[in-house]
């Protein structure tokens, strides 16, 4: 399991534990109590580290290569899961996945960005960066869900929509924009969960939901900290400062009223416990879906509309409006 830069103090302890374990095996010495002692220290260090994460640390957790991916979560959360493919026009984009399944007793269309866990998978999944056909696949599947009155759950985890000529030629901007508008009109509830990286328009393209939830160490940002640092701070190395300034952690996004809830992760991050993470997301989604059981489609559309309508602070006639609670 890849260790993150901020985990360095922990890393040394983990190395020592491994050494001792090897030693105890090869040499046949009983080091149980030594190991237990160091493990206890490691736990304390981990708790301390994770209690004092900086935003850029959180970004690293959100991007951890072993973070649970959308398909894995779908198979853990759903019964009768069937992945569906293709935009019916041009291609099947492997960086966005979708399919039907049952979440508890709820029928759901699950849509998600899909990253890989190693280089080969990541190349196949284009590192979770969709082309327009990915957004169009998502749209097709969401329209299918809407037609059959099936609630939609979207799992957001992308560095952003792919920035390349082919994507531009096929209308990356239009593909994302259309999803925003169409998602606004669906008659079924849409629950979006940021499970890793919420990268700008590429994330929002499947994120216009009634409810937005975030995993504890997920981030959501208008631009990557690195991009912001190089453009606004004129120094790509100031990503840590940018990460802080942009307010991209789950608690920031919650304070700003953009997300509705934060889902706790296991100590050390979701990558340590996929099943536990899946259960957390599943039960949060089921709670949300239960809420809508008796709602009319008009009420569902209206709730979604009202949520986005009130986002964006400004001053009018010298009075602040739409201010977030922390101000």
């Amino acid at each position, binding site marked *: 399991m890849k260790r993150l830069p901020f985990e360095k103090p922990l890393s040394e302890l983990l190395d020592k534990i491994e050494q001792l374990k090897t030693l105890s095996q090869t040499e046949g010495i009983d080091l149980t109590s030594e190991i237990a002692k160091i493990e206890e220290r490691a736990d304390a260090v981990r708790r301390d580290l994770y209690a004092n994460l900086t935003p850029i640390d959180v970004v690293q957790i959100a991007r951890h290569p072993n973070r649970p991916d959308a398909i894995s979560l779908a198979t853990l959360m759903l019964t009768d899961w069937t992945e569906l493919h293709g935009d019916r026009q041009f291609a099947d984009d492997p960086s966005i996945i979708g399919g039907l399944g049952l979440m508890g007793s709820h029928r759901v269309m699950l849509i998600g960005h899909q990253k890989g866990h190693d280089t080969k998978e990541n190349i196949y999944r284009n590192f979770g960066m969709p082309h327009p056909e990915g957004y169009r696949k998502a749209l097709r599947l969401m329209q299918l869900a809407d037609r059959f009155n099936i609630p939609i759950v979207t799992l957001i985890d992308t560095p952003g929509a792919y920035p390349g000529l082919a994507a*531009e030629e096929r*209308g990356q901007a239009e593909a994302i924009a259309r999803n925003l508008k169409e998602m606004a009109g669906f008659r079924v509830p849409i629950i979006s969960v940021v499970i890793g990286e919420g990268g700008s328009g590429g994330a929002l393209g499947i994120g216009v939901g009634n409810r937005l939830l975030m995993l504890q160490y997920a981030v959501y940002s208008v631009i990557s900290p690195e991009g912001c640092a190089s453009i606004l701070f004129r120094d790509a190395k100031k990503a840590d400062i940018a990460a802080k300034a*942009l307010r991209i952690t789950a608690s920031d996004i919650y304070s700003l009223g953009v997300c509705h809830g934060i889902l706790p992760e296991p100590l050390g991050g979701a990558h340590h416990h996929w099943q536990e993470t899946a259960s957390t997301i599943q039960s949060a989604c089921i709670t949300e879906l239960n809420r809508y059981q008796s709602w009319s489609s008009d009420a569902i559309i209206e709730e979604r509309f009202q949520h986005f309508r009130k986002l964006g602070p*400004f001053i009018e006639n010298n009075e602040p409006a739409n201010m977030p609670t922390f101000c």
Partner: protein
Amino acid sequence: MSIVDWFAKKEKTNATSTKLNIPGDVWIKCPSCGEILFQKDLESNAKVCPKCQHHFRLSAFERIELLADPTSFVEVDSSISPIDFLTFSDTEPYQARIHKSQSKSLSKDAVITGSATIQGIPVQLAVMDFGFMGGSMGAVVGEKITRTIERGVATQNPVIVVASSGGARMQEGIMSLMQMAKTSVALQQLARVKVPYISIMSDPTTGGTSASFATLGDINLVEPGALVSFAGPRVIEQTIRQKLPKGAQRAEFLLHHGMVDRVVHRKELPTTIAKLLRVLMIPTGGAHETTPL
């Protein structure tokens, strides 16, 4: 401020044509064909190069002057102003940037909104101003465009938005991203009441603006040569080291790739819009009553 005030100020400040000021302030070199143009001539030609038809950028009020029938424009929501709710500071505090931009500009943010008529047809109009912080979309732009769309819903007037924007305003963090959703959600409401929306993309229309309201027109029009993209050429080169061919992401490229209905010369915009609206708008007391599905 009304367009009348703008005319009054126009002569004095000439602030909106700063971009064109070169030493001497009277001659402009066309960046497209190299022709040296007398600034007054350029301005009397809708800021279009008479030789190669290069479309120079317009300020919001210049745009309104060209688009709306004379004296028909009535500005609204002019008092809405940005707030630095994140206390954001990069090489300069956001608050300072706001002040600087506002003092150079005649408006409080990167969009002017109001009602007008175009060849006699009442419309709700929003015009972006690239001169104000690169036309970036923050909460003010999002709110004012949303209100424009909502007035379209309320009045049944067609909505016309002229985009000119480098994208989201990063200094407002996630909230700038949310303006993409906010404006697009409003357009869903407009579509439901079947009021036409014409989007006009001018140079440049990129990032969060292109990926929201600007590409969502019932009719999408674009000015010749305008750059319209999700990821701009520099972003693409820096991120994936792909060099774009000449003409990529320009208006004619968009037409070829099916993204816009027409490339329209600036001077033809009012006529084209009026022609389209005459057909698009359901005549009052008209035929084909629709029954709900």
